[in-house]
């Protein structure tokens, strides 16, 4: 009898040992923005993206077919739907408030979840980690952070996507260098005051320590708003006191807001309005001005708008068309380009 049990044990050991060794080979490790070392399977085929803006990046890097769960906001971006019609069928496990429907998410059986890192773990991380689904957090508060995000996303998705990410980062860096070359020698006096505002119902300004502040400065401007953070409510009088030279209207309904500003008698005396320098920020697969993959284009666009005299040879249209062709595999028509740069629906 003892012999038999010995045989059973031996047989079992034999049977399981290959699995054990192969299991040791099927994981890899990634360090995320929160400094956590996350263990991932070596091939990732199912990705849940909890960060609205990042969904476009996933698409861009070529990983769109791996997307198995997304956010409600991403699904609603008109250009994202156009470039990637399948996104309608992808279950939206994450809603606008940042809450998660755990069952929807787990039903999609993701290998990994991508999420933005704002200093704290998301509320639902404990619930998800109980099911052993790894979460990778990525930075979202600066232009440099966007590059890291692209790199981490590429790494998570796989070698092919990682390569595209490196290519994108090179392109991004090239754009930044190109712009910085002209703007870094500008003195404070030569930098126009730029106000980036959303006025969907309430007048707000995007101030210091934001992605927006980053590209304003890079593009050779100064942030007109001396408040800190995104979307701070300000009075019209305060805006008049800042007297910006350029006003950029971000976030829908951009055209409506721009029109309201140009027609409102109270804005009339502000320099930007007097000079007709009220612009609408382009919006494509995601809003260009807010930590999106198209930030690489945003820096070019902003530079051209703020310092047209320094960038007369910069053709935003050509850059956009090339970008979309290369990364989204989509040939933009004139009308489509128009709708992106004017932030209207395609």
């Amino acid at each position, binding site marked *: 009898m003892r012999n038999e049990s010995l045989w059973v044990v031996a047989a079992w050991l034999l049977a399981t040992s290959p699995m054990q060794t192969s299991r040791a080979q099927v994981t890899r490790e990634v360090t995320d923005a929160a400094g956590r070392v996350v263990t991932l399977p070596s091939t990732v085929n199912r990705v849940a993206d909890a960060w*609205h803006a990042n969904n476009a990046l996933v698409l861009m890097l070529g990983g769109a077919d791996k997307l198995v769960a997304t956010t409600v*906001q991403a699904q*609603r971006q008109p250009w994202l739907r156009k470039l990637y019609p399948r996104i309608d069928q992808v279950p939206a496990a994450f*809603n*606008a*408030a*940042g809450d998660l429907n755990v069952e929807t998410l787990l039903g999609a059986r993701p290998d990994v979840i991508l999420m933005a890192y704002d200093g704290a773990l998301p509320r639902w991380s404990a619930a998800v980690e109980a099911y052993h689904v790894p979460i990778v957090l990525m930075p979202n508060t600066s232009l440099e952070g966007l590059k890291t995000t692209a790199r981490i996303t590429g790494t998570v998705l796989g070698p092919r996507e990682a390569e595209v990410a490196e290519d994108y980062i090179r392109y991004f860096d090239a754009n930044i260098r190109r712009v910085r070359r002209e703007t870094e020698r500008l003195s404070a006096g030569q930098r126009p005051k730029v106000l980036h505002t*959303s006025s*969907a*119902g*309430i*007048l*707000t*300004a995007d101030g210091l320590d934001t992605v927006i502040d980053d590209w304003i400065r890079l593009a050779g401007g100064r942030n007109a*708003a*001396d*408040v800190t953070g995104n*979307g*701070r*409510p*300000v*009075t*019209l*009088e*305060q805006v*008049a*006191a800042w*007297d910006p030279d350029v006003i950029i209207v971000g*976030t*829908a*309904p951009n055209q*409506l807001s721009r029109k*309201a500003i140009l027609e*409102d*008698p*109270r804005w*009339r*005396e*502000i320099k930007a309005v007097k000079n007709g320098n009220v612009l609408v920020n382009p919006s494509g697969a995601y*809003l260009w001005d*807010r930590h999106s993959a198209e930030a690489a284009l945003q820096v070019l666009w902003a530079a051209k708008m703020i310092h047209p005299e320094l960038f007369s040879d910069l053709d935003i249209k050509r850059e956009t068309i090339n970008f979309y062709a290369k990364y989204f595999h989509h040939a933009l028509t004139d009308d489509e380009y128009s709708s992106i740069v004017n932030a209207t629906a395609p």
Partner: protein
Amino acid sequence: MRRWALIAMILVPLAVLYVSLFVGRFTVPAADVARILASRLWPIARDWPASAETIVLQIRLPRAILAMFVGAGLSVSGAAFQGMFRNPLVSPDILGVSAASGFGAALALLLSRGAFALELVAFLFGILGVGLTYLLARTYRSTPVLMLVLSGVIVAAFFSALLSGAKYLADPDSKLPAITYWLLGSLNGSSMQTLKLVLPPIILGGAGLMLVRWPLNILSMGDEEARSLGVSTDRLKGIIIVCTTLITAAAVSVCGIVGWVGLVIPHLARMWVGPDHRALLPAACSIGATYLLLIDDVARTASASEIPLGILTAIVGAPFFAYLLRKTQGGWQ
């Protein structure tokens, strides 16, 4: 009412209005402000920058006037309701106007329809909310106070739920913050245009309330007693509800939800002139106008980023109310 009290009631708000035009984040020398104002009355050579004139006449002046009318309107509505409901803890929101108006505003923001539509929809929803409350409260022949209060609670809860639904659907990058800030209260959107829209209902409602000050005294003794003295209580309550709703819906539509004004100012006014509504309503108007004007001056000047009105009125109003409570030992005398 003593003569000096009457004079103070008129002069103090006007004085504060005048002073408010001199403060703000945009630096306009005091002499310029004075001359800009004077130039409206008689011709003066223009030697100040056009931007200064825009600031004083197009931004500060409409905003200050609006603050006064909203403050006065909310206070007089609160006073009238406290008399009608015979309860000093009542505020103008009790019939659900703020919750309904808030939902209307959220809806307009979600649909991105622009500032005018926002005010109109918020106003109409405010009226709708109170209308629903009134219909719900109407029993066989009358609208007893208890039914009004309960119906108001129900309608407010319903619209609050709808509002939460709207917030849930809102885009967190643009719409949700807009809704949130709107709900906190702000006179950000004031302009001459807004004045033309919002002042008529407030003035109309206010005039209506002023006309029924004496019957309101009687009503505040109790429904049955009022009827025995010949007051048609249902008709009077209807008039009061219509007037206060006009005022409050207009105020909320332009200013968001500003609490603790309609609740606290009537108490101050009562402490000053007594419970007779003939003196109480004008006193509430005057104190309310001055109060909200001062608060708004702080809200728009204290920091670069505007402080929402609702936060300031709560921070000032709640502790002050607690002080009143302690002082009167709950006696409201």
